[in-house]
């Protein structure tokens, strides 16, 4: 079971995957709570727009995507919709489509542009170096410390979105701004190593599965963290044993965990329904 750890590159891949998994699954609890699951794909796309732009002008391959993504995150932090007919997700979707179209336009004028984009979008988990891991650990460490210290502030904000009380928040809220900055930073670093789809899965699947497993807020975070670690380990183990690309293997395991969590939720639901006599459950039974 642990034979993959005899190979240094698998150890590096696991450390990198576990670091991203832990931070993203925590941020995912906020993202799912606020109902902005596509924020990651939109920011990921803005990041690749940055790559396309850097390719086009021929310089700034590391700084431009970072600046673009943080700029996108800043824009998103201003989205605060008071009109009940509109959802935040719609605006994020528009940003996604717009950034994708601009990326396509830029790539069409850049030789071999799509190969450079692919490199950024699909990551290099199996050939990640300790230098990259250190850089990521420092960036993620700072984000984690900010969130650990101001735990209550961030959760109070997310709950106000959950309860539809977001109209009480002003146009510029420093915690909202910090939240989007941490998402933006986390995504830029995580996408370089893991690729867009694994990052999206790390962000959403552990949080959703954890919510299905428990109702208590503290436990949701703990479960999400645990799920991300389990998926990193078994995903890489799967990739190692059956020789599959690492990122997709991790996503597959995360998907299976989600299926198990859903099955548990359904089983518990059925178990609880019979003895209960509350009107709403009766309604469901009918």
């Amino acid at each position, binding site marked *: 079971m642990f034979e*993959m750890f005899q*190979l*240094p*590159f*698998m150890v*590096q891949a696991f450390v990198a995957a576990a670091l991203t998994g832990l931070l993203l699954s925590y941020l995912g609890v906020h993202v799912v709570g606020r109902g902005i699951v596509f924020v990651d794909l939109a920011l990921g796309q803005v990041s690749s727009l940055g790559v396309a732009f850097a*390719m086009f002008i*021929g310089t700034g391959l590391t700084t431009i995507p970072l600046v673009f993504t943080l700029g996108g995150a800043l824009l998103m932090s201003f989205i605060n919709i008071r009109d009940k007919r509109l959802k935040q997700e719609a605006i994020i979707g528009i940003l996604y489509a717009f950034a994708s179209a601009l990326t396509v336009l830029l790539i*069409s*004028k*850049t*030789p*071999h*542009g*799509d*190969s450079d984009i*692919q*490199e950024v979008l*699909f990551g*290099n988990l*199996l*050939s990640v*170096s300790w230098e990259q891991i250190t850089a990521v650990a420092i960036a993620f460490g700072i984000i984690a410390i900010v969130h650990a210290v101001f735990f209550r502030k961030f959760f109070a904000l997310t709950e106000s979105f959950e309860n539809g009380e977001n109209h009480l928040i002003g146009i510029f809220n420093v915690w909202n701004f910090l939240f989007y900055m941490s998402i933006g930073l986390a995504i830029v670093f995580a996408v370089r190593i893991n690729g867009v789809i694994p990052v999206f899965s790390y962000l959403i699947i552990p949080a959703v599965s954890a919510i299905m497993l428990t109702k208590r807020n503290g436990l949701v975070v703990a479960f999400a963290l645990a799920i991300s670690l389990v998926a990193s380990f078994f995903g890489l183990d799967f*990739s*190692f044993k059956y*020789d*599959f*690309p*690492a990122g997709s293997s991790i996503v597959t395991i995360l998907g299976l965990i989600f299926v198990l969590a859903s099955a548990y939720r359904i089983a518990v639901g059925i178990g609880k329904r019979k003895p209960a006599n509350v009107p709403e459950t009766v309604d469901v039974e009918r």
Partner: protein
Amino acid sequence: MKNIKSIVAVALLVASVLVANVTFAKTIKVVTTTTDMKSIAEMIGGANVSVTSIATGYQNPHFVDPKPSYIISLSNADMFVTVGLDLETGWSPQLLTSSRNTKIQKGSPGYVDASEGVSLLQVPSSLNRGEGDIHMYGNPHYWLDPMNGKIIARNIANGLERVDPANKAMYEANLKTFDDKIDAKMKEWQTKMAPFKGANIIAYHNEWVYFETRFGLHIVDFMEPKPGIPPTPSQLVKVINEVKSNNIKVIISSPYFTTSSSDVVAKQTGVKVLTMATSTGAFDQVKSYFDVFDYDINLLTAALK
């Protein structure tokens, strides 16, 4: 009685493992980036080597998605063969570093850059990405000239002789056989292509310049407006006009490019779209480096008639 049987069985097993280890110890493990390098390495190394290729023959060698097995086979390898220039820069240096195998790192005896000594074509005078000159050392598709196959074979033989000097005579003999076969086949290929000298054709991507030069074809234009940029509407119009005015009969493409835009030109003009083999293993029947040219030349001569 049972015990004796199992002891004998275990002893036999241990013995066979030991014997196997002794025989395997002599095999030189070679990892190549592409299938053409594998095919040539097998012909030079003979029974002495076991060769694996990382990329498949129908894959675009510019992009390869890393899998754990690639790094594992590299970490056990005695020799590594790369096409070189910047064909595999997107993936092979990273895999090589991750393997941590000091025998095959750049500069080590087990590292073979097959492009050493090849006269490169299309070496840019000034590097300008905007013009599509991303190949700063020159066009890297040099294995598509069979005469360059001899240089590749020489480089591989040199590598094997560094790693396994004891068998030098055998590698030299295999190299001689390979060169002789190239010379013999070359005559056959040249004869077949002779009637079509100077024939105008269109290519999808700029990867045929060595083939074109060797066999006297003339590539008028590419489907891609610049290397790596997918065909644009204005390029399609340009190619359609060129096909009509030059009486061009074929567009050549590769298994990893979509033929949809070439098909548009074909519908408008009646030109034939040929998906040629760019590497060993591109199609089932292309089993060796020699088959690449047999396949492509048969396809071309049939279409140009």
